[in-house]
């Protein structure tokens, strides 16, 4: 297959015809490696400024792929910065020598966004200190390379907690703010990026700039959800809250659409503090609803619970038994669902994470379960995000694609509260037509025990992404290898506007060059 390669900074018309979504010729599914022009001069320049560049095979290979495991590439060298000044020196030299720079936190991207196809890799995990906790203002100021789990660890010692963060131990704060960050409390609190009070950013030209909604707000709006295009986040001041254990209720469905309607009802009514859907295939659909306080749970029980159409566990068990009695040829599916249920649910009730009937450390409990039962050495989780009205159809179409490709898979759906029409939402995971609450779904095949080729997995992802193009949706992860979709998904006008802004901010187009532009 012919795959044309385009110069950085040029986004050509998308070759997808409106009536031929299947089999889209992708522009770049694995970018060509930057060839190393001026590399030695660049390294010399950095060394003269006191910045250490690691160039050994061992140092570079550590970063050869990301969690997606589909994109592979090697940087020419790695810098582990200890300060914003280090990063400033790197970016100034990179502009002068036109060397691409890729930033990486936890490396949890799935489309190669944090993989360097040559050039310099900035390993931000070296900047991982909490700088200040302000219990009066209820904020924390932290270096951006810190992982959320490490931040939670520090906050918990003061009885505090972050507001929302990805259900993942090793996602970095900076990386998350750059893409959004979804939690099961996002229907109420929005994305992690929306918890930001202030940032310190190193611009692509090497200026160190503080920004907030009052100070340099236009930069703040471009850096949040900005996919690393407009600067490197070096520090973040985030809202925090008092830590609370939570209680969870589960509702079980056999219809995706009904479960989604109930999820949207809960989010719309602000009926719970946390909500989300996790499925086993499309047969056992669990709507989880959780609460930070007894008062909120009592209110839910009194006002909204009776409106939900999900079963309790016993009722759902009977329903399933009846279904499989009528469909005995699907007995293997039933065995799989039962087996998975008995392995999975005890993880949510481990005694060391429970206290007085409540779950403590929800982030740990959820993250452990997610990693253990949905994770793996390779994360294949294409996603779609949509406004409320289109969401059920998007999930059903995505579900059909999962059925076609894999025997076992799961869907994870959650709402995302928006803070109005903010510039930061342009060209982001927030679909342009969403109002008040957007919804996202991740489609995750269970890969353990079976080997699939990279092409097979990429074909699956492409079919999911095609649904987004067809329905005018957005994606949590639209960078990296999805570059070919951007004009179709976002529209020429917005892409050209952002491209012009990128060229103005990053004249040599060196920062995170393979992510979008």
């Amino acid at each position, binding site marked *: 297959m012919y795959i044309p390669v385009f110069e950085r900074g040029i986004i050509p018309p998308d070759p997808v015809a409106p009536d031929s979504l299947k089999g889209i010729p992708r522009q770049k599914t694995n970018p060509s490696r930057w060839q190393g022009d001026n590399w030695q001069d660049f390294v010399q320049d950095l060394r003269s400024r006191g910045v250490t560049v690691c160039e050994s*095979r061992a140092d570079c290979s*550590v*970063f*050869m792929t990301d969690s997606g495991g589909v994109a592979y590439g090697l940087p020419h060298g790695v810098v582990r910065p200890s300060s914003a000044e280090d990063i400033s020196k790197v970016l100034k030299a990179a502009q002068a020598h036109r060397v691409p720079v890729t930033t990486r936190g936890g490396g949890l991207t799935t489309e190669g966004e944090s993989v360097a196809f040559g050039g310099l890799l900035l390993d931000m995990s070296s900047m991982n200190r909490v700088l200040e906790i302000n219990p009066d203002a209820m904020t924390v100021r932290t270096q951006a390379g810190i992982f959320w*789990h490490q931040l*939670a660890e520090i906050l918990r010692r003061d009885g505090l907690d972050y507001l929302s963060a990805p259900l993942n131990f090793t996602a970095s704060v900076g990386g998350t703010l750059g893409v959004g960050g979804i939690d099961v409390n996002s229907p109420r609190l929005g994305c992690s990026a929306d918890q930001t009070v202030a940032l310190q950013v190193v611009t692509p030209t090497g200026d160190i700039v503080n920004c907030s909604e009052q100070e340099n707000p236009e930069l703040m709006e471009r850096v949040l959800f900005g996919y690393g295009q407009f600067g490197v986040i070096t520090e973040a001041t985030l809202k925090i809250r008092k830590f609370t254990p939570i209680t969870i209720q589960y509702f079980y469905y056999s219809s995706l659409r009904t479960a989604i309607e109930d999820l949207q009802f809960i989010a719309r009514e602000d009926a719970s503090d946390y909500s989300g859907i996790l499925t086993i295939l499309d047969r056992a659909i669990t709507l989880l609803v959780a609460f930070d306080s007894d008062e909120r749970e009592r209110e839910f029980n009194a006002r909204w619970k009776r409106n939900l159409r999900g079963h309790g566990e016993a009722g759902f068990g009977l329903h399933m038994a009846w279904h499989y009695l009528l469909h005995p040829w699907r007995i293997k599916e039933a065995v799989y669902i039962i087996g998975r249920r008995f392995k999975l649910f005890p993880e949510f009730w481990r*005694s*060391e*994470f429970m206290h007085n009937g409540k779950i403590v450390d929800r982030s740990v409990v959820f993250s452990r379960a997610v990693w253990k039962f949905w994770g793996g050495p390779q994360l294949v989780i294409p996603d779609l995000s949509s406004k409320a009205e289109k969401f059920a159809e998007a999930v059903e179409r995505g579900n059909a694609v999962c059925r076609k490709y894999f025997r076992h898979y799961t869907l994870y759906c959650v709402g995302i509260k928006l803070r109005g029409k903010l510039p930061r939402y342009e060209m982001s995971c927030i679909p342009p037509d969403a109002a008040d609450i957007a919804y996202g779904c991740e489609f995750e095949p269970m890969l353990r025990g079976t080997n699939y080729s990279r092409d097979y997995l990429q074909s699956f992802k492409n079919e999911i992404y095609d649904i987004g193009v067809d329905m005018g949706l957005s994606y949590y992860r639209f960078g990296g290898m999805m570059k070919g979709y951007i004009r179709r998904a976002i529209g020429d006008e917005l892409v050209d506007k952002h491209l012009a802004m990128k060229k103005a901010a990053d004249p040599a187009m060196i920062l995170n060059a393979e992510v979008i532009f």
Partner: protein
Amino acid sequence: MPHTRKARARALHGGAALEDIAESIDSCLLCGSCEPVCPEGIGIAAMNMEQRHKLNKLRTNYPSWYPEPSGMNTRIKDNVLHNSIILIAGEYPGADLKARSAVIELLGGDKKVSLAVDDGRDIGGLLEACLPVSQDRIDDFIRPLRHADTLVVSEGLLHGPLRKWLPGKKVIGTGEALLSSAYIRKALGPEDLYIIECRGYHSDYERLVKFYDRLRKETGCQTNLDLQRIAIPTGASSLQAKKDLEAAGCLEQAGWIIRGRSMRRIVIEDLADREVFQRVTGVPVIHVSQLR
């Protein structure tokens, strides 16, 4: 170079040689904390030991903190011990000899508890360095222990191997042995920071996570368990730390454990932790056997 197993695997996958990542391989404390949290259930510590073992074959010089190869065949003769509990006490230097006597007393006194003269510390060192331990030496070590029901072993690195060498024996750490007494537990309170010995804890994680969770709920004490209920190690028992605590990163680790905590006393299971915490904090540091 990041010191994770995954990072090392990627480095090797990318063409690096074992010698290129020697520093990373050597930095593993074999604390075992990676295993309970591995979502894939991979035996990471065993893989690290395998890498260290292979690296040893390639080395021209061992690191300075490695045990002397000449010490490998040291044979210590111990009498067969007939009490139901045997204390394998490890290193109790200087004034800590009192702590050893206190442990024996608290476990039931000389009539119930035997002290193993051969504490297997050379075996622990060889296991940590992934150097070969002769079967004769192992036999000499375990022969006196055959009649016991319970082995109370201070060195956590020996817990796993002893369970393998002496199947059916109950192998527990000093902390667990002493905390089984309500009298000792009552002396702990919310203002205590209790430091669990990591290697033993992670070798029997599924059981001990519940044990220490009950302790925390009962006494309100703080512990060095993180949010995943993994014991954060100081690394003070490691071979490298025995040469140089600071270079081994122990003070930094201890600093991370106490950061943001308010406590009036630190209670340790592993005596090697005493100096580390004394150097990073002004609060009293006592051994679990000194709890009253």
